[in-house]
């Protein structure tokens, strides 16, 4: 176990800086530059987790973001722990503490492993089929399934880290820092374009940078040396920004891209303090160059998932870049030339390469010749049929392939190994291309989907292996040629470039390798993360699933956190083979952003806590805070809800406030109501068209209540509008409706009635509104504005006066939302708190009581006044609200008028607003409770629901408003409100409970 598999030859790992870390509690060492995966492998640890469904032991399989198995939990701090981190991506830092996920009680002994032996009974769709029946049992199954499944543990405390968002604009964005990305960035920067190059690794150069093979030369030097010089030369461009550790998450239309930059995840915990953890870049690029590369495919054969089975190119990276041997007796299994490069690298590093199993009959490429000259043994035309070893591969068995590749022939021969490299060819990373709207085409010759140049959105290009170019000479030459036209370049620094590289010619591809056993007896894994096998895909096809999207969901192939980066092509290939379809016709599944998972922190950035949404406070807010107000959120506004005194609860406070307002005087901060200043010679005509009632005859100085409908005839908003002058009105709207009402009015003015001379200005924030109501309101106003004649003659209900309070201009409206004699002072907001305090002082002798929204709602309910949005829900007409009086029947037109006599709106059995009294006057109904007539009926008919409900201290009984089918005709009828543990008897009444004659308005 505790072996050191590090060799001393590499240039990329800082072997002078030792880093200690923990894995599953075991203290281990690695070096600066390691990933967790490379450090584990150097310690001879392959087994890192268990598979999702069968709990099979799984090991590190790749070296990048496509890793399906090596998914770990980082840390165990309740707020900082990070689940589902790929060991192949996380950089090693001092004190890193990682543990396996998806295993219980431990990775070496896992109870769920029993699923592996049950696997014949756990086919595709097993969960769908089994746990759906009987329905009531789901809760019992769920406990067991959730306990034994699950991908990591979410943190239980809030995230203390800081995340950032930043916008960026550039001429050219290059995604990917491999050879084609480096060349693209240089060409763009050389032309003088503002260029950003992003790469998800800590180093640039992709796989070429550690390609030390003599067979690859550019301008007569080794390709890795040439590329290192190119990377060095990028420093000369001040117009080029390079972002390492930055991965592109999404590529949206109009070249809008999201990229996540990791700033501290590679640092030790102490070094992170006070720094931004991740930054989400929102980049708008004039042109985008995708150079996202390709990933190697696995091969699909029985038991191809054992720890120690690794992609061949990853083995090469571990040895060449990290200096880590993934085993000491390695064999390779391939269908193409690239495994031979791995073989050569291993051989040169002194690692035993036992055999290379190649499904092809031969290959005469330079790289294969080189391998053969070094003495590597190749088994041509052969396939691996099975592997052995539970927690680590021990051996594998090989058979000869038949000429057509459909069968195996001869006998099994067994080879011992501690690591098997597999190479199934290459898949271009076209995710970003398709996210941006590009369409793919299928290239039969090597079975790849590549960008269709005729279906590529404008101002973007794919270069290098993500464009299906895999040979060094193709990559380099095509990148130069394509960028010449894409960036309008004439001469470039790369003109006349010379490339030498091996040329692969021999091709053979078999999606599902044949076996001497029937498929039912084999376990050829396709999706390693979700444990779906080739068998499952075939079963899905037998059961009638045809579309790739359906097969994907039924078998869960490609639905893990890796989004099937390794598995999708084989799933498609097997479907195509089984159904006799061409893969190009089959198409691919949809690649959705993000390309790799994003943290929630990066998504929300700084928009947390008080920055999550704007908070609007009135100019009097500080007074409310000082006076013990409890606040209610109304849209973005903070409104005083009630003002508890001496330990009162909400009910007690609201009862006291409501009583005081009617007995003497109450004061309310009504500043949040929307206020729209309306001016223009057609202002009256405009109001005629937007409100249901008539406005032309409203005298200057008078106020009127108006109801606004949608074009469908449903009540939309309401409020009082005051005529300030011949061509000047001020409209009030509900608090929540203010912005939408303004937008709607602007819409009609600009698009339907551009001929009207009307100007709208929102003045909600500019004016504050203080409402004083109650029998003593008049006495209080007299004290504040001594010269003002408050007689009903001079200042009647529904009128306003311009006046001054302490030399400050203000408007006082005599309007009432409580049914009491009341005044609303409108004053510039910067004076509002002073005036409020003046009112409080003047009102002291009258027990002037500040009240909040709850008391306001109670008082208006006593009067049967509606609150749009509470008593209405967008399905009620004025008539449904028993407000037919407000319809200007003689008016030619207004918004919503025609809809008021559609066949549906004139139905008499619509839900209509009524009042409700409970049989027991102490019983307060729940808002939202249903109303029924016959409790024994089945199915029981719901006649309506309670919209507002309060205990009225002024009437000393419970009151409610409700909408009820045919409610207008049902006055006096008894209904039932069925609750969980009792049925409440109610009686339908008029909507006005208090002062039906409106005597108090002028009291």
């Amino acid at each position, binding site marked *: 176990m505790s072996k050191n598999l590090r060799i001393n030859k590499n240039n990329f790992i800082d072997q002078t800086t030792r880093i200690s870390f923990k894995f599953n509690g075991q203290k281990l060492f690695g070096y600066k530059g390691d990933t967790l995966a490379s450090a584990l492998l150097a310690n001879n640890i392959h087994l890192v987790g268990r598979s999702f469904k069968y709990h099979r032991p799984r090991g590190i399989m790749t070296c990048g973001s496509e890793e399906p198995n090596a998914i770990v939990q980082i840390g165990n701090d309740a707020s900082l722990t990070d689940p589902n981190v790929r060991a192949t991506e996380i950089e090693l830092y001092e004190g890193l503490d990682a543990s396996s996920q998806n295993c219980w009680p431990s990775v070496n002994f896992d109870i769920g492993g029993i699923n592996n032996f049950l696997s014949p009974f756990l086919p595709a769709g097993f969960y769908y089929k089994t746990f759906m029946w009987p329905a009531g049992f789901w809760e019992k199954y769920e406990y067991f399934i959730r306990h034994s499944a699950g991908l990591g543990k979410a943190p239980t405390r809030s995230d203390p880290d800081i995340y950032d968002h930043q916008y960026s604009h550039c001429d050219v964005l290059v995604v990917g820092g491999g050879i084609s990305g480096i060349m693209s960035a240089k060409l763009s920067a050389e032309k003088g374009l503002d260029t950003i190059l992003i790469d998800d690794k800590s180093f640039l150069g992709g796989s070429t940078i550690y390609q030390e093979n003599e067979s690859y030369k550019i301008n007569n030097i080794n390709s890795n040396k040439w590329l290192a010089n190119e990377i060095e030369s990028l420093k000369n461009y001040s117009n080029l920004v390079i972002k390492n550790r930055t991965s592109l998450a999404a590529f949206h239309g109009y070249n809008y891209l999201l990229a996540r930059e990791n700033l501290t995840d590679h640092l030790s915990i102490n070094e992170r303090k006070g720094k931004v953890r991740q930054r989400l870049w929102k980049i*708008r690029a004039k042109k985008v160059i995708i150079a996202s590369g390709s990933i190697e495919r696995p091969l699909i054969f029985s038991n191809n998932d054992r720890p120690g089975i690794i992609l061949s190119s990853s083995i090469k990276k571990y040895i060449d870049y990290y200096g880590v041997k993934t085993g000491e007796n390695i064999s390779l299994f391939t269908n193409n030339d690239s495994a031979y490069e791995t073989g050569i690298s291993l051989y040169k590093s002194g690692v035993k390469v036992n055999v290379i199993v190649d499904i092809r009959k031969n290959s005469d490429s330079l790289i294969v010749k080189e391998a053969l000259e070094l003495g590597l043994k190749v088994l041509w035309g052969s396939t691996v049929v099975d592997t052995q070893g539970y927690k680590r591969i021990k051996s594998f068995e090989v058979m000869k392939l038949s000429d057509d590749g459909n069968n195996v022939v001869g006998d099994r021969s067994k080879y011992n190994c501690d690591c098997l490299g597999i190479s199934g060819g290459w898949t271009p990373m076209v995710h970003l291309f398709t996210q941006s709207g590009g369409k793919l085409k299928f290239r039969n010759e090597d079975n790849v989907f590549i960008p269709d140049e005729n279906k590529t959105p404008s101002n973007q290009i794919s270069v290098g292996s993500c464009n299906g170019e895999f040979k060094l000479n193709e990559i380099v030459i095509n990148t130069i040629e394509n960028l010449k036209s894409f960036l309008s370049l004439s001469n470039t620094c790369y003109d006349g470039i010379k490339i030498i590289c091996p040329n692969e010619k021999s091709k053979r591809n078999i999606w599902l390798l044949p076996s001497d056993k029937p498929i039912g007896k084999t376990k050829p894994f396709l999706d390693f993360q979700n444990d779906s096998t080739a068998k499952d895909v075939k079963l899905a096809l037998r059961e009638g699933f045809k579309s790739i999207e359906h097969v994907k969901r039924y078998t869960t192939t490609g639905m893990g956190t890796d989004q099937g980066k390794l598995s999708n092509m084989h799933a498609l290939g097997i479907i195509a083979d089984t159904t006799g379809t061409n893969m190009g016709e089959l198409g691919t599944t949809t690649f959705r952003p993000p390309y790799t998972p994003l943290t929630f922190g990066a998504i929300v950035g700084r928009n947390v806590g008080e920055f999550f949404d704007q908070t609007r406070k009135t100019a009097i807010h500080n007074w409310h805070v000082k006076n013990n107000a409890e606040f209610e959120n109304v849209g973005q506004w903070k409104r005083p809800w009630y003002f508890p005194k001496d330990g009162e609860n909400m009910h007690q406070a609201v009862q006291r406030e409501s009583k005081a307002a009617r007995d003497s005087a109450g004061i309310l901060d009504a500043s949040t109501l929307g206020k729209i200043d309306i001016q223009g010679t057609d202002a009256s005509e405009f109001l005629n068209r937007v409100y249901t009632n008539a406005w032309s005859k409203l005298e200057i100085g008078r106020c009127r209540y108006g109801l606004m409908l949608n074009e469908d005839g449903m009540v939309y908003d309401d409020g009082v509008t005051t005529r300030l002058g011949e061509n000047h009105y001020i409209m009030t709207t509900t608090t929540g409706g203010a912005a939408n009402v303004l937008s709607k009015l602007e*819409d009609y003015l600009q*698009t*339907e009635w551009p001929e009207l001379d009307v100007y709208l200005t929102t003045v909600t924030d500019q004016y504050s509104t203080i409402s004083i109501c109650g029998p003593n309101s008049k006495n209080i106003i007299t004290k504040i504005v001594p010269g003002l004649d408050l007689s009903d003659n001079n200042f009647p209900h529904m009128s306003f006066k311009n006046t001054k309070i302490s030399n400050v201009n203000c408007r006082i409206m005599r309007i009432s939302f409580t049914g009491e004699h009341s005044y609303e002072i409108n004053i510039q907001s910067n004076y509002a708190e002073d005036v409020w305090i003046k009112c409080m002082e003047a009102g002291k002798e009258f027990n002037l009581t500040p009240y909040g929204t709850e008391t306001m709602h109670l008082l208006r309910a006593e009067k049967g006044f509606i609150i749009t949005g509470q008593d209405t829900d967008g399905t009620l007409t004025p008539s449904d609200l028993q407000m037919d009086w407000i319809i200007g029947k003689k008016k030619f037109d207004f918004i919503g008028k025609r809809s008021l006599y559609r066949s549906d709106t004139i139905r008499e059995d619509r839900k209509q607003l009524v009042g409700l009294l409970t049989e027991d006057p102490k019983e307060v109904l729940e808002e939202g409770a249903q109303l029924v007539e016959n409790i024994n009926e089945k199915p029981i008919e719901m006649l309506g629901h309670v919209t507002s409900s309060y205990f009225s201290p002024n009437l000393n009984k419970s009151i409610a408003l409700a909408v009820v089918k045919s409610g207008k005709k049902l006055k006096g009828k008894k209904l039932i409100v069925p609750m969980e543990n009792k049925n409440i008897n109610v009686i339908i009444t008029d909507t006005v409970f208090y002062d039906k004659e409106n005597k108090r308005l002028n009291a």
Partner: protein
Amino acid sequence: MFIINCPYCGERDQTEFSCGGEAHIERPKQPTELSDDQWAEYLFMRKNIKGIQFERWNHAHGCRKWFNMVRDTSNDKIQAVYKMGEKPPVK
């Protein structure tokens, strides 16, 4: 995320705009003369085309002007923007 060329302000990010649905649906001048079906046609029926669609947009977090847009919904290409009351520049 589109870049929209407001006819009054110039190119701005889509987040500044809100879409107001299909364009060129004029509010009937004489609603009272319409049958229920005709009124319902105006009120409820909207096209949802894969291809060239005419839409109303509002520069809500900018100049607050409404204008029209011709957009190909199959690839989100904005083919034209023009002011309210103007004839569409493309068919």
